[in-house]
């Protein structure tokens, strides 16, 4: 029996899980169009490998990982690439981003794929396979799995099956239905980080999932631990605290305390890749809220949410938007054509009955309920004041960046202040300023380098000139002797000063050069042209004569 610990704070929002958790998951039908965002993970955008018009097979890599902190994107089904262009994506900005759109051909024909023996591979190769298989953390943050599990041996491997956010039931259904496959995936992750203990944390509101996992984990050394239901238990740092009692240091990652944490759905995706050769092309998504029959669906990535909602028996009248994710941390959108991405664990159809508009905010009364609820043990009311006053330095001093944006503070706020919005604003402002500062520093360095280079060039030129002069000086006596000997130089001051000698030599050289140059277009002329030239020359001579006369005449 494991001794469980508590994290600070936490809240108990209405669960709303039973709506979607009771029906077994179903496979969503092939959509009419797939929109694959090139950035479905934290890190660098994947680089497209296909063009409009290309025929692709299911599971074929469409975009490769760019650098280490990135992951590949694959074709969820066979078909034709329609375009590689900007498309609106699920992002709070509502701005478009680069996407590959794919028209399925209906054949759903697989590209060559085969399982492989992960034990026979060196660790680096296995990690590269995870990257090229597009495996990222499916808990919500989509952190590339090959980066997370690249760390050396850890003491504890924590598998996150808490699924604390209301409405969402994908991990619940996945654990109930595919426990054995999850465990096979966990074995691969264990092979990567060789932990001395492996723990799966599941909230106690999922008894069937717990039972299924316990059965699958029998005699594997994997411990299934029931944790109390409390939001946000599913936060990485919170779950680690509950299971190990160790706290992730401020600004650190679980790896700093010898723990690696991954989602059960990620373990399942790893299993599909290794034991079936299937890259990440689909995921389980809960469709719930104001729909006729809420349910979980195995959905191809890139499916428009409008078609997904149709699978759940279409939206109920009065529906007025969607939430990507849960109600606490999710993204509220209104565009039904937005595609499912790797981080999409839930689509909630909103209606004013289920999600009434928040009441108007009142001023903060400093009741500190938010501080009692904060799972990161921060002082949300202070952070709110600093963010509101744009005192970003102070906000950072109060560990703004340890905020996980779980929304527990805003949930308990009696004044209904949208606290998380302030923290997000402050964070992005700080990041933007940091970027600007780095750009300014880079510009300063380049400018200073340029000034230095110009100085150096000037110096070098001056030095060269000085050297040349010196060389000319030493050569001058030899030169000036014949010059002085020739009778033509008799009218000059015969033993010319060295400078004059140099100048005279230069003039002489220029004269010689001028004499060598022959006008090239005067050879092989026709008699007519020669006559023309003669005429022009005659005219010129005449003009010269005229020009000379008047200048002389006024003088007289």
């Amino acid at each position: 029996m494991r001794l469980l610990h508590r994290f600070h704070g936490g809240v108990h929002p209405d669960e709303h899980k039973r709506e979607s958790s009771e029906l077994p998951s179903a496979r969503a039908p092939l959509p009419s169009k797939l929109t694959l965002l090139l950035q479905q993970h934290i890190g660098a955008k994947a680089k497209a490998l296909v063009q409009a018009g290309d025929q692709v097979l299911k599971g074929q890599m469409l975009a490769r990982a760019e650098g280490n902190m990135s992951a590949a994107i694959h074709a969820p089904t066979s078909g034709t690439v329609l375009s590689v262009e900007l498309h609106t994506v699920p992002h709070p900005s509502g701005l478009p981003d680069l996407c590959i759109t794919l028209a399925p051909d209906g054949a759903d024909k697989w590209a060559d794929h085969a399982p492989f023996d992960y034990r026979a591979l060196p660790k680096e190769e296995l990690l590269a396979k995870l990257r090229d298989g597009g495996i990222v953390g499916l808990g919500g943050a989509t952190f590339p799995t090959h980066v997370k599990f690249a760390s050396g041996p850890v003491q504890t491997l924590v598998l996150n099956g808490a699924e604390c956010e209301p409405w969402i039931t994908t991990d619940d259904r996945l654990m109930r239905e595919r426990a054995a496959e999850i465990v096979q995936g966990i074995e691969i992750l264990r092979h990567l980080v060789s932990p001395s203990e492996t723990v799966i944390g599941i909230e106690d509101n999922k008894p069937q999932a717990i039972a299924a996992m316990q059965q699958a984990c029998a005699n594997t050394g994997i411990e299934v631990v029931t944790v109390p239901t409390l939001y946000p238990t599913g936060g990485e740092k919170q779950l680690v605290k509950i299971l190990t009692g160790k706290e992730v240091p401020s600004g650190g990652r679980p790896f700093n305390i010898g723990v690696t944490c991954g989602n059960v759905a990620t373990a399942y995706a790893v299993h599909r890749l290794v034991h079936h050769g299937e890259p990440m092309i689909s995921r389980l998504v809960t469709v719930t809220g104001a729909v006729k029959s809420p349910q979980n669906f195995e959905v191809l990535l890139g499916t428009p949410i409008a078609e997904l909602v149709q699978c759940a028996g279409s939206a109920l009248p009065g529906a007025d938007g969607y939430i990507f994710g849960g109600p606490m941390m999710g993204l509220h959108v209104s565009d039904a054509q937005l595609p499912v991405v790797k981080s999409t664990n839930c689509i909630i159809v909103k209606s004013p009955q289920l999600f009434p508009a928040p009441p108007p905010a009142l001023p903060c009364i400093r009741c500190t309920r938010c501080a009692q609820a904060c799972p990161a043990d921060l002082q949300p009311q202070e952070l709110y004041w600093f963010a509101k006053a744009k005192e970003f330095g102070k906000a950072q001093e109060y560990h703004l960046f340890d905020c996980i944006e779980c929304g527990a503070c805003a949930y308990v706020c009696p004044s209904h202040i949208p606290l998380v919005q302030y923290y997000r604003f402050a964070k992005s402002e700080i990041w933007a300023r940091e970027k600007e500062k780095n750009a300014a520093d880079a510009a300063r360095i380049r400018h200073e380098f340029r000034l230095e280079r110009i100085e150096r060039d000037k110096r070098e030129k001056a030095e060269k000139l000085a050297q040349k002069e010196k060389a000319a000086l030493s050569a001058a006596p030899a030169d000036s002797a014949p010059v002085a000997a020739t009778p033509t130089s008799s009218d000059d001051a015969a033993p010319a000063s060295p400078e004059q000698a140099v100048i005279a030599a230069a003039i002489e050289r220029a004269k010689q050069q001028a004499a060598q140059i022959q006008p090239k277009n005067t050879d092989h002329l026709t008699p007519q042209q020669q006559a023309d030239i003669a005429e022009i020359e005659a005219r010129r001579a005449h003009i010269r004569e005229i020009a000379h006369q008047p200048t002389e005449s006024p003088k007289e």
Partner: protein
Amino acid sequence: MFTALYVMAGIALVLGAVLGYSAIHFKVEGNPLVDKIDAVLPQTQCGQCGYPGCKPYATAIAEGSADINKCPPGGEDGIRKLAELLGVEFKPFGEGAAQPKPKSVAFIDENICIGCTLCIQACPVDAISGAAKQMHTIIAAECTGCELCIAPCPVDCISMVALPQTIQTWKWQYPVYTMRQAA
């Protein structure tokens, strides 16, 4: 009485020696305030302030010969930071003076460019690549948007392109929400 005098004189000598020693050994080269001001300036090196770069402007501010509201690329935020650093009042941009513009980068129309290198010589941060009679192009990532390359171009092939907002440059807005009026 003499003891007191000796003690006082002794203290004076010791302190004098310490001060003299530190004046020589802990001498601060240059004006550290200039560097602090320079760190706040946006480093566009555009000369819109009337000085040939950010550092000369910073020096002028430190000497008190320049106002703090002469840097349009820094925006009002920049003035605020300078005011805070120097402990002076915030001063808005002057009427009719250059105003801040959205961040943009230069763009060379390569069909028109004749490869004269004049813009390369004008660029304060070496953000233009090219050579005599070769195509020139702007290294957008290094361009500070100073516009110094536009005037020297003999064929007017350089224009400024405002940077579009993308997901990567997007920022969360300051929350605006209705507050209930207290009765």
